[in-house]
């Protein structure tokens, strides 16, 4: 198991994702002899997990069952321990494509936060790329570094505990792409430019507030970035439902009045049409943040 390489069988020391239902999943560090509590009962690692195939159905002590899945950055995003607000898959997917990430890309990121985006970046740049991630909060930086080791991606990433606005990314002229998710991204734009390759590259800044976007765009233009473009992307989930729609009874045409005996024989159930359709959830995240992209030209 690694977050950048699939395996078939669950082994001691892996991180597996226990999938309970479509709204809840939890990461589990697989350890010989260990146990994990779920709402469906206990999972015993030695017998229920180790040696089984990823994707297996596991029956818990209370008789309920769960599926044990191979970790992916997307499953990690929905199950990771939150230490900060995190980026979700819809934004991550857009960022990954618009930053033109691929195997071999060198990426700078700040802040690391809970590492939701970091794992997705690592998955895409492996096996030959690298992520330089900067987090100004010491405990967060240490915790995420530990997770990278547990997820067996530590060889692809350097975690630095510093303030990107003051100290930059700790590297110069190496990055193909830079990602900023900090309160004042405009202060980090010159550092971002310095971190990027002389031949150019792509930058993305994520900000929840439009005022931040305005200042960032101004800073990007001042630093000669090109193709500055701001967009917003939202996920819309369609829940599949079978619905039954009753048909109205308009009564009989009076001119062709039937004998009363017939009208009493009318079916007791009012006619209805049943169909498969989708409904939107009652509430959805209507705003995550604005994504501002830009191209650094060759300098």
């Amino acid at each position, binding site marked *: 198991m690694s977050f950048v390489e699939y395996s*078939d069988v669950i082994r001691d020391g892996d991180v597996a994702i226990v999938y309970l239902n479509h709204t809840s999943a939890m990461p589990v560090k697989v350890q010989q002899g260990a146990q994990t509590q779920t709402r469906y009962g206990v999972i015993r690692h030695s017998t229920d997990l180790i040696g089984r195939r*990823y994707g*297996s159905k596991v029956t818990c002590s209370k008789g309920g069952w769960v599926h044990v899945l191979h970790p992916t950055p997307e499953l990690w995003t929905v199950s990771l321990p939150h230490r900060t607000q995190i980026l979700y898959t819809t934004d991550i997917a857009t960022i990954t494509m618009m930053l033109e990430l691929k195997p071999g890309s060198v990426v700078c990121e700040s802040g690391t936060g809970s590492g939701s985006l970091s794992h997705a970046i690592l998955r895409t740049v492996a096996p030959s790329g690298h992520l330089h991630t900067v987090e100004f909060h010491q405990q967060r930086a240490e915790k995420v570094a530990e997770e990278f080791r547990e997820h067996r991606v530590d060889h692809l990433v350097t975690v630095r505990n510093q303030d990107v606005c003051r100290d930059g990314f700790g590297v110069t002229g190496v990055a193909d792409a830079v990602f900023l998710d900090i309160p004042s991204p405009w202060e980090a734009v010159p550092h971002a430019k310095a971190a990027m390759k002389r031949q150019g590259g792509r930058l993305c800044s994520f900000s929840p507030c439009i005022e931040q976007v305005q200042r960032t765009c101004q800073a990007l233009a001042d630093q000669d970035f090109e193709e500055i473009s701001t967009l917003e992307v939202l996920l819309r989930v369609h829940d599949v439902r079978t619905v039954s729609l009753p048909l109205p009874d308009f009564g009989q045409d009076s001119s062709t009045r039937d004998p009363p005996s017939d009208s009493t024989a009318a079916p007791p159930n009012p006619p209805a049409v049943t169909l498969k359709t989708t409904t939107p959830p009652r509430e959805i995240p209507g705003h995550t943040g604005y994504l501002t992209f830009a191209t650094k030209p060759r300098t």
Partner: protein
Amino acid sequence: MADNGDDDHEYKIKEGDYIVLKRGEIFKAVQIVQKKKIIFEKQWFFLDGAVGHLYGTTFEIASGGILQPQKPKNTESPSDSKEAGTDNRNIVDDGKSQKLTRDDIETLKEQGLKGQEIIQQLIENSSTFRDKTGYAQDKYIKKKKKKYENTVTILKPSCRILAMMYHGREPGKICHLRYDTLAQMLTLANIHAGSKILVFETCAGLVLGAIMERMGGYGSVVQMYPGGGPVRAGVESFGFPAHFLDTLHEFPICHVSALLAGTLDVTARDPTADEKQLSTAAEEDPNQTQAEEQNMETDTAVGAGQDQEQQEKEKRREAKAQEKKVKLEEKRKRLAAAAALLEGRNADGLVIASRFHPSPVLLGLIRFLSPSRPFVVYSQYKEPLIECYTKLKEEGGTVNLRLTDTWMRHYQVLPNRTHPVLLMSGGGGYLLSGITVATDGPKPAGPQQSEEPAPKKLKLNHTEG
């Protein structure tokens, strides 16, 4: 850092390269071919002048369609006169504000004036420009720039650029797949280096190319294709290095049923079919030649020269048959290689984006995936995905099923003028995504797959017993 000349080699535009032309928001993918006329945005030119320059360079189109690299940085707005009106109360659209006529502008163009200079002329001859607000002046200049500047930028192709290009220019060719939807697909299917991915697409090869880019030449991609052969025009536009193509395999969907049933035998069965084809082809040939020979014999006036001709004809025919044989053998080998990749039913991901009904495609191809692997299906329409969802729920073997689409909006960001862009895409298509799981029961009983209805049967047995 890394300032040596060698470093730039891969950034240089070379002959034969697949490149993307860009002007404003308009893209076009072309290959650099010597002396080949390119038409882009109603202008024609040759790309020869771009060879040897660096990717990202902006060129001016000089007379004769010759590309010349633009001098760096003269993009500031031509009018530096800060005179501007406060509002538009005195501006009347009477069509008389511009003193230059169409012919005047054409003359200026013929005199070889650059776009910038023409715009300056337009401003000087506009009676209302000074009365426009500063914002309106900027907008005017931007509009005229778009019309009169004859520049083109040459870019290295990427998934981002090609997806935006196809969506903007030829959405019908890619089933109206919007670029952010493609982005979701690549992420939801966890496409990464070293995995084994199945792809079924009728999006001109854009989806296939995007997947190959994300795999970086590591692992393998099997293109499941309908009809006579795989369509890959879009893959070419990515300009991948040759070794990427070694990771690409193809398998015709018309053999899927046989492969699933275990009756497809590419080592014995198929070759016999091929050989039959070959032998019939070979048989036909001798018959023909014999017939011709007979004709020759009956012909009294046979010259020695004709004899030689006859021999040559035969040789050519043999060579052709040989070539055909080699080609068939090659095709058989490729089919066998693709079948071998599929037979283990241990693929790591499945991506479907086609004009076909997705339901049979999904239900057929999902059987080639390992448990705990993601799949994603694109459709321009929602209803077929509802059907896929329903069928997968019935069959079992999947979790985390989600039917989604993405909403995307661009913003104009300018000091005091920030707002959503007036036009936005009405929809980018729908996705059904999920993860496969093992279909056998909780106990690792046997290799045979027990279906979901099993528990019901068990219950019945219990009541009977």
